[in-house]
């Protein structure tokens, strides 16, 4: 290789790695990204972006089926074609991946195709080449889908699949059991239900979306039930009989064992870290007791000059968290002093319908921490805009500290919750209290008015309920 010395070498071109590369390049660092697959990582190619394309198909289908007539639109028989929707989602991913490639080129980041292995002393081997970094090697290798072998569910790509295969199906299965009701499982339940599959959602914890506020979980459980999705919460898959044509699952719930048959099983119960064969031990990079790469407050690993960002650096495993870590590390490496990341202020979104978005603490967490809090709530049934657009499912819930008015947490279930949560992210980032939220005049009629009303409700001053 002509030039094998860089300031910064980043292993992985996903949302953590490529954003780190852009920021490092902006700050004048000579930067390389090593990527064995497509740029943009899971997020762009086989995660966030294509799933949103499919979810949009699902949303439009449900809209036409359930609401067109009421809205004065007559449509004929609605026919669903997963293959067409999938091919559109591939195009979207393709475009986005090309976009990342363009951005890296624009910022003069060198992209090295291949699998990088860490060597001691800030060096990286790619194939037969050895690259060295004068400032840092940044690990951003992310995660991959995995099965649930303890329940007999190894991914075979046909009857037992992961999100990777689900995003590439040609047609929707007649029936599908989804194991794991976190955001990935819930989103696929939404998609396959809209495309006509018989969907069973299985969650080992006591409720679906177990990390969200209990009110959000129950709102989605209710909405899913209405749409014919079977939700089994507090249910454990104990055994699986797998054939090429289908899977029979034994599911234990409330002391009873059910048998469940499905054409396909989608395993969405956690992801595996891409750390094997990366050369961590040889380079002196330790892993935490939970298996993540051990990092300090500056995201530096136990090896001098080796950093870790994104999923491998610890939860939450979210693209936007990884990107921010990439920015912060790049700024540290360029000698700046970026504001520390506030891990308690990272929004979390599930893009089912209605969407679920949250930031900060859940009400349960407030109780566990024995915080003196007040709840403000506003349901969309009381919102003029929501009634006008037939989007009255959901609510805004704000948890505030009673004494100082600090926004401890906020939870939104709404058709556009993913777009609304940032008012609260911004408020919390700037330490606004519920009073500053309420002080800002909200346009009428909008769904966002519900945020101001929930803030008011937490102060016992709600106007429209």
């Amino acid at each position: 290789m002509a030039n094998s010395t860089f300031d910064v070498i980043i292993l992985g071109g996903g949302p953590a790695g490529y954003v780190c590369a852009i920021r490092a390049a902006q700050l004048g660092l000579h930067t390389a990204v090593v990527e064995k697959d497509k740029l943009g990582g899971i997020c762009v190619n086989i995660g966030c972006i294509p799933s949103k394309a499919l979810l949009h198909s699902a949303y439009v289908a449900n809209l036409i089926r359930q609401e067109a007539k009421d809205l004065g639109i007559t449509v004929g028989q609605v026919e669903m074609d997963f293959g067409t929707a999938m091919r559109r989602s591939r195009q979207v991913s393709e475009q986005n991946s090309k976009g990342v490639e363009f951005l890296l080129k624009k910022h003069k980041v060198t992209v090295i195709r291949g699998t990088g292995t860490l060597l001691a002393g800030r060096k990286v081997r790619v194939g037969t080449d050895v690259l060295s970094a004068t400032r840092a090697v940044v690990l951003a290798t992310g995660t991959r889908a995995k099965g649930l072998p303890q329940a007999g569910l190894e991914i075979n790509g046909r009857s037992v699949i992961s999100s990777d295969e689900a995003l590439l199906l040609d047609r929707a299965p007649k029936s599908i059991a989804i194991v794991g009701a976190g955001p990935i499982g819930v989103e696929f339940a939404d998609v396959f239900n809209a495309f006509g599959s018989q969907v069973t959602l299985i969650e080992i914890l006591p409720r679906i979306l177990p990390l969200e506020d209990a009110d959000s979980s129950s709102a989605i459980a209710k909405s899913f039930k209405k749409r014919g999705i079977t939700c089994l919460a507090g249910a454990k898959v104990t055994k699986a009989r797998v054939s090429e044509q289908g899977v029979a699952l034994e599911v234990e719930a409330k002391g009873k064992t059910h048998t469940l048959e499905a054409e396909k099983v989608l395993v969405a119960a956690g992801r595996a870290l891409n750390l094997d064969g990366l050369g961590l031990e040889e380079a002196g990079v330790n892993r935490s007791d939970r298996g993540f790469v051990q990092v300090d407050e500056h995201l530096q690993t136990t090896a001098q000059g080796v950093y870790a960002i994104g999923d491998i650096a610890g939860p939450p495993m979210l693209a936007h968290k990884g990107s921010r870590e990439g920015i912060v590390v790049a700024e540290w490496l360029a000698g700046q002093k970026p504001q520390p990341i506030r891990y308690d202020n990272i929004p979390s979104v599930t893009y089912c319908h209605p969407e679920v978005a949250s930031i900060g603490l859940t009400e349960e967490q407030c109780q566990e921490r024995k915080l003196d809090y007040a709840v403000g709530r506003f349901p969309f049934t009381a919102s003029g805009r929501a009634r006008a657009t037939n989007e009255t499912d959901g609510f805004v819930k704000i948890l505030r500290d009673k004494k100082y008015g600090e926004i401890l947490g906020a939870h939104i279930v709404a058709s556009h919750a993913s777009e609304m949560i940032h008012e609260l992210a911004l408020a919390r980032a700037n330490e606004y209290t519920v009073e500053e939220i309420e002080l800002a005049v909200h346009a009428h009629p909008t769904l966002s008015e519900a945020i101001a009303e929930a803030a008011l409700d937490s102060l016992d001053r709600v106007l429209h309920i």
Partner: protein
Amino acid sequence: MATKVVMEALSPTMEEGRLVRWLKQEGEPVRAGDVLAEVETDKAVMELPARGEGVLRKVIAPAGSTVPVGQLVGIVARPDEDISSLLAGTRAAEPPAAMARAASASPAAGAPGPQAPAIAPASAPASAAAAAPESPVTPAAPSAGRKPKASPLARRIARERGLDLALVPGSGPGGRIIKRDLERAVAVAAVPAGPARPREAGYQDVPLTQIRKTIARRLAESLGPVPHFFLTVDVDMERAWDAREALNALGEEPKITFNDIIVKVVAQALKQHRACNAWWQGEFIRYFDEVHIGVAVAVEDGLITPVIRHADRKSLREIARETRDLAERARQRKLKPEEYTGSTFSISNLGMMGIREFTAVINPPEAGILAIGSITPQPVAEGSTVAIRRRMRLTMSCDHRVIDGATGARFLQTVRRMLENPLAIVW
């Protein structure tokens, strides 16, 4: 063998001593432990003992001269011993005064209070620059004038807790003060209540956080070595008056004074407010479990503050008796160093001189002193009528590096509540 007689550090704070008179004359035989001379220190007249045997061969510092600690004042040697080399070589061999001071400094570790400001500026600028890019180093007007940048939540917390934002360096975007900064600021004040303190030691040394250092430096720059602020509270003394009369009607000696009652109340209140029972130690703050009250006593040419040790655990009568005894011996300048050092808080009372209220100057390294005014009948609104009640005004001087406004205020509230209901002493 010849022995040098040097000016010794006869009290922890002593830097120099005045030789009042020599009790041995040149040529007189001397045994180890004999008193050679009387030395007046900053607090009392002390005795300078002989460290060796022989004859007082030479008096170097005459009576009336003032000599820094560590300097040669005389020589004890055998009658026939040649001391000319000692006399000639002494000047070069003398330990520098500063070194002697350091070596003889009190066993309590750390720099004594007054030295702290000299240390702080040296180490502080780097940390201040790191914490607050906007450079809050400007010594002028710490709390007045310029409104500090702070998040709405930080403002709210500061308002509710009575914290002065001007004293808090911000670490948010553009040096803005955010919640985290306030949490760090109050952490030091909160620590004393924490469970993990070494009980056996009788005190706890809490290292200074960067913010506490910055506060200390900035206050010191603007207000002098000890950044004082003052809190005044009005106390209704009717019930304390009745209680004292009832006690003294028992006919026991000594009679209880208001000062005794105040010493007792302050000691018990300090037990509840450890944040005010502390020493500023430059690089850390020492919070005491024990309460030793210094009571300022006027002496002929100044004042001295004898200490009522464990005042919180002593009865009023014990306090009364001890205060009389200490004050009497203070006036005769007979106090031993341990009797006027080691107080954790002080009281100064000018009430008997008809002073309505005044501010007392803190006795470093202590963090607070309470100034007691006179008890005078005052008109007080009681509903729509005016009643005449006996009132007393207390003014607490606080070292802001240790005690924040609300901390001092809460302590004074307790003091007032106890004085207004003196039964609280036995509660």
